[in-house]
Each structure stands twice: as structure tokens, then as C-alpha cells.
């Protein structure tokens, strides 16, 4: 009781005038400056890449995009991006084609099928796959995966479906567009599956139970409830996966072989925008060659910006539709 007796009369403290708090203002300024800095950084990236490729743009214009050429010999210099664009599109879409069903399968397994005890470990393992550095996947791609693919799947596909131009003669080296596709598949699989998993988890359980209560099988519930609900999100996940596949330089450089031609044969060597840039790291001979390399980077940057903006647009639209709002803050 004694402590309660030492009561102090509450005192009123004056508060006329809004005090400008040094702490508040400085934290807001510093944090705001950081946020502004990030925005400026993105702008600077775009500007610097455009600036660096200016010489090539002036010399070549749009023709650069449809020309198949990469000749850095001074005097006879001629550059074009067409073969790299072709290789980029072929490898990234090829990878997406394989990775999409695989990732969605993994995500469905994790959300709907996996027994509780293995859910956690399997999630951890799949996410660990995303953490494996691309240079290691590439190393593994050249010396382990490439030779195996050449002697097994590639030669089998060639024997059986050789009449389709896509399945031509396997290249002797083991490096091929097909190896690049598989390597990219491995790299985007964990990304797409972890986004899809989050999407499937967000499907309200009342919806799922509602479908199951009608007497549907689990697969019918997935098709009828989960897929329609998560459709937009899955599209965004696939676009992000595609963008990641387009931008991957290192692993592709290691396994694709690097030949600046357009070939429909998946089992021959090729090249992509990103891998062409990476392979040129030891230096360019002329300023036009350097500028052309940066031009390739510009094309890549435009692709990835577009892909990301579209994906984010979808995500935000879906979030609005489902009434998901970001937690409000004080």
C-alpha cells in the first residue's frame, strides 16, 4: 500500500504550437531519400543502358533486331540481335513449357496432397533448389546433364521424331539449346512453384469444401475451384518465370554452345541475349561492338521490365478482385 501513497499530482504540460520534431523529420527524410534513391536507381539503369547502346542504335536502328550477324572484325563490323532473340525466345518458352505443369504439380502436391509431416521438408527442399547458384547448375549442365541428354533423350527423340526439324542431329559437344532449356527449367521450377503454392493456399477453404461437398473428386475440385480462383496469379507466376528464364546468363552461357545462327534444331548449339553478353565479359574490341552488346542488354531490359510490369499489374488486379488489401498501417 505504501507505494500507492506516494501519489504525485499529475501535472499538465503545455503543448502550444506544433513542435517540429528533429527525430521525426530526420527519420522521414532519410527513409524518404532511400526510397527516392531506389526509384532514381531504376531510372538510372534504364538511362545508362540506353545511353550505352546509343552508338549501336544510331548505326543500326531497328534493323539490328532482325539481322543475323555478329562480326567484330574492324572494318567489316556488322551486328544483329535476331539469332539471340530467337535463342532467347526458344529457350525461355521451351523451359516454361516444361516447368509450368511441373511447378503447378509440385504446388498442388504441397497444398492438397502431401501428408502433413512431409509438407515442411518438401517445401524446404524445393526452395533450396532456388538457392543453388546458377554457375553450379551450369557446371553440372555441361559435365553431367549435357552428355546424359545427348546419349539418351536427344538421340531417342531424333530417332523417333527425326522428321520434325526441332529434333535434328544431336550436336557432338553436348552443349545444346535443349540442355539450356532443361537447365532453365530447373532454375524457374522453384520460383513458379513457390508462387503457385502461395496462390493455392489462399483459396478459401469454404470454396474447396463447397466443391467437395457436391461429390466432386479432388482433381475436379482443383479444376473447378482452385484453378479458376488462382488463374490470374498463375499467369503472373508464369510471366515472372519466363522473365527469369530470359534473363539468365551464366548457366545458359555454359551449356548453350554459343553460335550466332538461327537453327530450329533443338539439339544444336545456339545463343541467347543474356549469354551473348556474359560470354563477352573479357572485353570488346571496338566501341561499336561494346555498344551493340549493351544494345542486347537494352532489349533484355525492355523484355524484363514489360514482363514484370504486366505480372505486377495482374497481381494487383487479382488482389483487388479477391478483396485482399495490404495490411493498413498506422
Amino acid at each position, binding site marked *: *500500500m505504501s*507505494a500507492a501513497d506516494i501519489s504525485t499530482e*499529475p501535472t499538465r*504540460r503545455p*503543448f502550444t504550437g506544433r513542435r517540429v520534431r528533429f527525430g521525426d523529420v530526420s527519420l522521414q527524410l532519410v527513409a524518404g531519400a532511400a526510397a527516392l534513391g531506389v526509384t532514381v536507381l531504376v531510372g538510372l539503369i534504364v538511362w545508362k543502358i540506353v545511353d550505352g547502346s546509343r552508338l549501336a542504335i544510331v548505326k543500326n536502328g531497328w534493323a539490328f533486331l532482325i539481322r543475323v550477324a555478329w562480326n567484330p572484325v574492324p572494318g567489316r563490323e556488322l551486328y544483329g540481335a535476331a539469332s539471340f532473340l530467337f535463342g532467347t525466345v526458344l529457350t525461355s518458352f521451351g523451359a516454361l513449357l516444361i516447368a509450368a505443369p511441373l511447378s503447378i504439380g509440385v504446388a498442388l502436391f504441397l497444398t492438397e496432397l502431401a501428408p502433413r509431416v512431409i509438407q515442411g521438408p518438401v517445401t524446404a527442399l524445393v526452395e533450396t533448389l532456388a538457392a543453388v547458384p546458377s554457375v553450379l547448375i551450369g557446371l553440372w549442365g555441361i559435365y553431367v546433364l549435357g552428355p546424359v541428354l545427348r546419349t539418351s533423350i536427344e538421340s531417342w527423340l531424333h530417332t523417333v521424331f527425326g522428321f520434325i526439324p526441332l529434333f535434328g542431329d544431336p550436336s557432338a559437344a553436348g552443349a545444346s539449346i535443349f540442355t539450356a532449356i532443361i537447365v532453365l527449367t530447373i532454375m524457374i521450377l522453384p520460383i513458379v512453384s513457390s508462387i503457385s503454392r502461395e496462390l493455392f493456399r489462399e483459396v478459401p477453404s469454404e470454396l474447396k469444401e463447397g466443391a467437395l461437398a457436391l461429390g466432386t473428386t479432388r482433381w475436379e475440385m482443383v479444376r473447378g475451384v482452385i484453378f479458376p480462383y488462382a488463374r490470374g496469379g498463375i499467369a503472373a507466376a508464369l510471366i515472372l518465370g519466363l522473365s527469369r528464364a530470359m534473363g539468365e546468363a551464366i548457366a545458359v552461357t555454359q551449356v548453350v554452345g554459343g553460335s550466332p545462327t538461327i537453327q530450329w534444331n533443338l539439339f544444336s548449339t545456339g545463343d541467347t541475349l543474356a549469354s551473348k553478353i556474359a560470354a563477352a565479359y573479357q572485353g570488346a574490341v571496338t566501341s561499336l561492338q561494346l555498344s551493340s552488346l549493351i544494345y542486347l542488354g537494352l532489349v533484355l531490359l525492355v523484355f524484363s521490365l514489360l514482363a514484370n510490369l504486366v505480372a505486377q499489374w495482374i497481381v494487383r488486379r487479382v488482389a483487388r478482385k479477391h478483396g485482399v488489401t495490404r495490411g493498413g498501417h498506422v
Partner: protein
Amino acid sequence: MSITIEPTVRVETRRQPIPPRERLEPIFEVEGLDAIYGAKAAIKDVSMEVYKNLVTAIIGPSGCGKSTYIRCFNRMNDLIPTFRQTGTIRYHGQDICASNIDPVAVRRNIGMVFQRPNPFPKSIYDNVAWGCRVLGMKEDLDARVERALTQAALWDEVKDRLKASGLSLSGGQQQRLCIARAIAVEPDVVLMDEPASALDPIATQAIEQLMHQLKSQYTFVIVTHNMQQAARVADMTAFFSISQGGEGERYGELIEYDATEKIFTAPSDKRTEDYVTGRFG
């Protein structure tokens, strides 16, 4: 036609009789207060006075804007981006809604206890001491913490484990800890937004006793949905209700404000009477 009211709420007589109004010192004078979220008014045209060293209860059905109203007293609504208010709240004669008033200073004088206990993820001791330290009340910190915890009727339960996390306490203890935290910095007014709504009867009783003991030092404003609670603790009671405006608009309105005894036994408004006799909602 006259109705005789049978009060459903037994009014305890622990309260001292309130001195006549002219001897009361108004601490808040609210005038023509509208509180608006976005385009929707939560409360309209509230005018009343809150008196020093009394417990003032705000009662009413859910959705009548009680919580919005009490958060106006210490500018907590400033934190909601779409919130606007018009009208004035004078605190000791000074309009605290004015834009040149520092909300931090307002909150420094007018503390708050929230509906759900929200102790900091710190030790019991630090939960109480942190505010004092930050606000520069560093002398005799131990004594200050002990005093606040004693006033909040928590000291005996926690004195042997002041280092334990505030989150390790039970819900009722957590709420008393939050009260200790609020009074440790010696505010002038303590606002309580349904402080007992998530608590068991014993914890509720402890909190009510506390208000009773401390009101000689502080002024309490309490929002409650529990009429018995208002009847037990409050000297003055304000009844809010939901009114219909044009075009289906619904907003909260102050219906009646008077001595608690009067509100519960002889209300002058039919709507108050319906509510306190349980004929409403």
C-alpha cells in the same frame, strides 16, 4: 402517456454524490464535433463537457461511433489516412484539434488503454519503464514502476518476476500492465476504449476498482458496451445511438448526457430509456 421505468440495472452506491454542475471543472469541452472516414460520417454534431476527476462513461450500441469518439480526445484518429474531423475539442480551454497543436504532446497528457491488451514485447518492468525513460522521467525509475504497478493492482502478482516477458502474463494481467504503463508517465486524463471487453470478470473487477481508486488523481473516460459496467464505475454517462440520415446514411449521435444515476433511472430521452431497459439491440 407516461411510462414508468423499471431499471434493469442495479445501480451500486459506491459512488460519491456528484457535486453540482457549477462546481465541476470541465476538462474537455466538445463542440459540434463531426468525425468522418472518407465520405462516411461516423459521428455527427457531438457537444458535451467532460469533468475533471470524474469517471465519464460512453455507452451505446455497436456501430454508434463510441470508439471513434474517444480516439478524438488524444488525436489517435490522426493515424488513419482518410480520417477528418470538424468542430472543436477544448482541453483546459485549448482547442486540441487545431492543426498547430502537436498530437504527440496531446497524447503525452492524455493516455489511452486499448480494447485488446497490447503490451510491448519487452519485460514487465520495461513495459512500464520504457515510456518513462523515453519521455525523460528517469529519476527513481524503480519506485515509479513499482508505484504504477501497485496502482494498477498488479505489483503483488509480478514483483518476483519483473524480468519476465509482458506477453507471459494472462489477458487480465496484460491489460492491467497496459494501465500501469499508461499511468506511469503521469498523464492528466486516461482514456479507456472498452478495456474490459476481452477480460474475465475478475480482471474486469480489478480494473473497475482501479478506476475508482485513481480518479482522485486522474480523469477517466471509458467506452463500454456493458451497461452494468457503466453503472458501476461512471459518475457521468453519455449515451450514443445510431441515427438515420438522408439516403440511408447512418451515423452516431449523442442522445443524452447526464449523471449516471439519472441516465439509468430517469432518462429524458425515449431512445436512452429503450436502450438501458434492454428494449433496444
